[in-house]
């Protein structure tokens, strides 16, 4: 009765979970770096703290290491989009009528007016994901910009240093890095909710699809061409 449709490739699923873990590490280490809310090493001279305690230096190391993982997983994500149609579903096709129709239906569903037609991924979600990719890129660019400017003639400063100055300076870069981090967390909360809700209302295996790659549909989804 249910039709299985293979939506998410293995590489995409692995990327998704790596991305999740990385963002969580980045967010919590970033919060500490922004506002060190506990003092880690009272009673020691600064020199001797390194091998004894969880220090700001170590937190920053975690943050930068996770930043590198985020960068390369992001590049990997872009790379796999070239090889499989299903990996390109983050592009909102706002030039099509279907896109605006889908937006309307999805909003209607969320306002409890009526359910939308079966879709592999509704256009509202596509738009949100696209914005999230932009935000991740912004975080990478500002992050490596600030990181790289310790060495103003170095590699990272030459690649991403410009964004620090285009935001108006280092202070503004810190500020926006902070704001967008929260926006990503905001997305995370809504993402978990809407995915669970989709699973609950349409019984299409939305949650498990990010583990096994498969979604289930009674009728053929309207955007089937995006994966086939």
């Amino acid at each position, binding site marked *: 009765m249910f039709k299985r449709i293979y939506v998410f490739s293995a590489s995409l699923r692995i990327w998704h979970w790596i991305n999740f873990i990385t963002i969580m590490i980045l967010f919590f280490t970033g*919060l500490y770096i*922004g*506002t*060190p809310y506990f*003092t*880690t*090493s*009272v009673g*020691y001279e*600064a*020199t001797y*703290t*390194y091998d004894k*305690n*969880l*220090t*700001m*230096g170590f*937190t*920053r190391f975690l943050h930068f290491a996770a930043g590198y993982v985020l960068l390369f997983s992001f590049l990997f994500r872009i790379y796999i989009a070239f090889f499989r149609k299903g990996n390109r579903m983050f592009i909102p096709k706002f030039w099509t009528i279907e896109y605006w129709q889908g937006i309307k239906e999805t909003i209607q569903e*969320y306002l*409890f007016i009526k359910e939308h037609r079966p879709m592999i991924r509704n256009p509202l979600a596509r738009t949100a994901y696209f914005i999230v990719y932009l935000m991740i890129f912004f975080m990478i660019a500002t992050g490596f910009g600030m990181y790289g*400017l*310790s060495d*103003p*003639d170095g590699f990272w400063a030459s690649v991403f*240093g*410009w964004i620090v*100055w285009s935001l*108006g*300076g*280092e*202070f*503004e*870069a*810190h*500020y926006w890095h*902070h*704001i967008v*981090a*929260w926006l990503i*967390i*905001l997305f995370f*909360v*809504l993402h*978990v*909710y*809407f995915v*669970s*809700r989709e699973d*609950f*209302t349409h019984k299409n295996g939305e949650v498990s699809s990010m583990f096994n790659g498969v979604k289930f549909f009674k009728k053929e989804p309207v955007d089937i061409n995006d994966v086939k």
Partner: protein
Amino acid sequence: METFWEVFKRHGVSRRDFIKFATTITGLMGLAPSMVPQVVKAMETKPRVPVIWIHGLECTCCSESFIRSATPLASDVVLTMISLEYDDTLSAAAGEAIEKHREKIMKEYWGNYILAVEGNPPLGEDGMYCIIGGRPFVEILKESAEGAKAIIAWGSCASWGCVQAAKPNPTNAVSIDKVITDKPIIKVPGCPPIAEVMTGVIMYMVLFDRIPPLDSQGRPKMFYGNRIHDTCYRRSFFNAGQFVEQFDDEGAKKGWCLYKVGCRGPTTYNSCGNLRWYNGLSYPIQSGHGCIGCAENNFWDNGPFYERIGGIPVPGIESKADKVGAVAAAAAAGGAILHGIATKVRKSANKEEE
């Protein structure tokens, strides 16, 4: 014009002291020791350069800083290194005499003098907020810049706009690069800039007859290449996670990192951490107060000074970004839960109908 060596000789300076001086300033300008012979050669052959130093909307803190330069002494710079032809604050002459002299020097050394600008032009009301010798400063600035070889923007005023350009900027004060676009401008920001940085920039331009290597923001790389945070002697406390929480706590006594009380060291590019002030005596962080980021663009608007990340201007209240973020995340979670419950109720109702 005489060369530096000739001037030194005239002042009775020995060859030995002359070489010492050349070596000192080589280090100060951020050049390798192997450059000493070139600096000596430049000092023996290059003629002194006429400098016109004009003052716009400013507080004269740049001049105050400049005259306290210890290595080299500002008097050395003024009397021997450059020929400071016009400076309405430092010169003995005043009134029409000095204004006439400026015009004469401009004509005589057209295309060869260095223009140093302290302060900035307010553009509001046709520049009427700053009048020098009966004329709007913006006119004097444009006129003096026309024949200049290069322009030095002294301090944050000329470089970025500084306090007078802070919101709401009633006089419409702008940095000089908004007014003069066709000349090389060296920005030497800071409120004021470090004295040795000022003399170092002048000497580089005079000795090598070119502008120093600049970063993307137009600041000399050798003095503005590093964040204060990256050169700060308190950095080890930052890395160790040892922070001053309040200015009267134990951490403040021990000289821990001022990050949490709003120090702008992590976002400010300047030489305070390594050159320091008053011949290396101290700098704000060393004296126990956080950096306020005076060398950065918009530092006055990026307040409050004693908080690390600025607030979000939510109508009516100024909140810290973290608080707003947490509230927004909680609201999103709450909204999601409510919406979920509504979905559940709706679905059960639909089932019963079926």
